[in-house]
């Protein structure tokens, strides 16, 4: 983070999500239904591709392809190739497609639509519909993409991704779970809760853990593989929970970055670990190291609340997007 260089673009609509394809193409999903695409190293403004009739609500890189899958409030699940070609994978009329996953390790795509998670094959064919009692508020897969975790009211459900009929393993914990993540070693599932805390389960023995003390809801969680921490938004600094060894129980979290008047609204972790990007509600982006707790500002205030952050696959740059429609890339991270 010696001399970071910021390139930013005004995209005229709130940024909903960011993703890098494995080839380094950046996609910026926007509230006006467009996807803005930027090839690696491209200097001009990203090219807008009309994808949804409404707002894009979620996005993920489409496996290892140079492509993205997006969900919108028009009920559409779309695929957009890095060259801008748009295709519709499926449509659920009158519904919102709120969460999507297409893991490199898997041969499927998963889309959360209301109370169901729809599993689709790479060829676009429906595989299975995973029904829930209430709305699915978050989805995550384990490292091998064999299992899928879904967050909902009163707990998290674990499913197999083979696409066959099944009953989930439900891990109950009272309250509304609004997001979920699976640890890179496959050992832990951690959910964010409406009650401004996190809940974790160690899968080997089913033990519970509570991570609390946040003044806000936790909207972003990112795993640093080495050192092994879970970085989170929701406080005035980045709160990182230690997951090495016996897990975070009884250990204080590491707090990183700057305490600002507002709060950390987004976090992302470097693919190799240690370096955490933090976005604040005043538009600041900072980079911080877990190992030595050093931090540096890489983007000044302004342009609106940081909604999303993502590291490029090579770890050399980090992209940001704001609620007011500013997006950009910070090179030399």
């Amino acid at each position, binding site marked *: 983070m010696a001399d970071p260089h910021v390139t930013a673009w005004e995209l005229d609509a709130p940024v909903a999500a960011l993703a890098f394809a494995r080839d380094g193409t950046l996609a910026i999903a926007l509230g006006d239904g467009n996807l803005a695409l930027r090839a690696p190293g491209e200097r001009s403004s990203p090219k807008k591709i009309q994808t949804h009739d409404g707002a894009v609500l979620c996005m993920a890189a489409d496996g290892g392809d140079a492509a993205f899958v997006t969900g919108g409030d028009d009920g559409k699940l779309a695929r957009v190739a890095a060259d801008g070609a748009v295709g519709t994978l499926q449509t659920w009329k009158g519904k919102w497609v709120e969460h999507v996953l297409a893991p490199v390790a898997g041969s499927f795509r998963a889309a959360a639509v209301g109370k169901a998670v729809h599993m689709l094959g790479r060829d676009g064919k429906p595989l299975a519909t995973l029904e829930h009692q209430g709305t699915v508020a978050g989805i995550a897969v384990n490292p091998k993409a064999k299992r899928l975790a879904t967050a909902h009211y009163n707990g998290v459900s674990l499913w197999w991704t083979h696409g066959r009929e099944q009953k989930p393993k439900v891990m109950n914990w009272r309250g509304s779970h609004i997001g979920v993540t699976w640890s890179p070693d496959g050992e832990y599932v951690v959910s964010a809760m*409406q009650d401004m805390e996190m809940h974790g389960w160690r899968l080997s023995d089913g033990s519970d853990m509570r991570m609390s003390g946040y003044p806000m809801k936790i909207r972003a969680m990112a795993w640093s593989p080495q050192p092994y921490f879970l970085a989170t938004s929701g406080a005035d600094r980045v709160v990182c929970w230690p997951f090495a060894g016996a897990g975070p129980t009884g250990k204080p979290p590491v707090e990183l970055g700057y305490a600002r008047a507002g709060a950390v609204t987004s976090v992302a972790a470097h693919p190799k670990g240690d370096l955490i990007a933090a976005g604040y*509600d005043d538009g600041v982006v900072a980079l911080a190291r877990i190992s030595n707790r050093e931090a540096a500002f890489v983007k000044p205030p302004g342009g609106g609340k940081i909604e999303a952050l993502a590291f490029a696959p090579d770890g050399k740059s980090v992209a940001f997007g704001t609620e007011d429609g500013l997006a950009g890339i910070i090179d030399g991270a």
Partner: protein
Amino acid sequence: MSQTSAPQIPVTVLTGFLGAGKTTLLNRILTEPHGRKYAVIVNEFGELGIDGDLVVGADEEVFEMNNGCICCTVRGDLIRIIAGLMKRRGKFDAIVIETTGLADPAPVAQTFFVDDEVKGRARLDSIVTVVDAKHLPQRLKDSREAEEQIAFADVIVLNKIDLVSAKELREVESVVRAINRFAPIHKARECDVALDKVLDRGAFDLDRILQVEPDFLERQPEDHNHGHDHHDHGYDHDHDHADAPSVLRHNPEVTSVSLRLDKPISQQKFEAWFRRLLAAQGQDLLRCKGILDVQGLDKRYVLHAVHMQVDGKPTSPWKPGEKRLSRIVFIGRKLDAEDLRRGFESCAA
């Protein structure tokens, strides 16, 4: 959310029983020229016939919070939908939420007190309850929700008045007033109430409570004798038509208690009393609004509460020579007026 650049979007909540006329009112809000573009959140199983670009179906998912307050529930679907709608910012200026006929308005209102993201992006403007003048008596008999919807209202549209006699109308009005003492009542035929009486009321805006309804706490319940006369009539009426519903047989569980104190209030005493009151009776206290003359404070202290969620702050200054008074209204179940009065009076400095 100190740095949030976007203004908060006003949200109007529309409640009322199936058939009361919510959809009629909603369609008027969507079609009449008022210079505003609305996003509408409707319940999936509600009345049909709403069309528009930004109509979103909701599931009315009521979630309990783990914050130790048993009556604290929020609408999880609204939290998600409002966050999603904000991605379309600029495409609409305000939101209307239509609830199902059987919905309890408390979780909707509490969502705006409890959720940090919703609070940062949207503000509850008012709860509007459409009441069917003809069928209210029956609704009050067979459901608890009808009473709660009236109790929670900031504005009441007493609809279908053309379907009742003048006497029935007076009776219905007095029943509504007995439940909710502060909401203005607008009489309507086919929800033909002026939209500016319904929209942009600022009913939850502490700075506007006084401006919008300067006498909301002054308003007295319907003339007491008047009510009693009708009570007698009601019983007579029942003898003649045994199954004709009468509002007068409805003995409201929910009532309003309005209190005043012409001595300055000790903030410390008031806070202690109010905290104890909410802890003990928060589940039964549906709404509360108050304007207080606090000792040592040049400004009016304004507060409102939904169950145990309270918001309050000093607002406009008392004018020189103005008579300072403290006034507070409670709407709730099983209210002990005498106990509340004693408690409130014990807050005198």
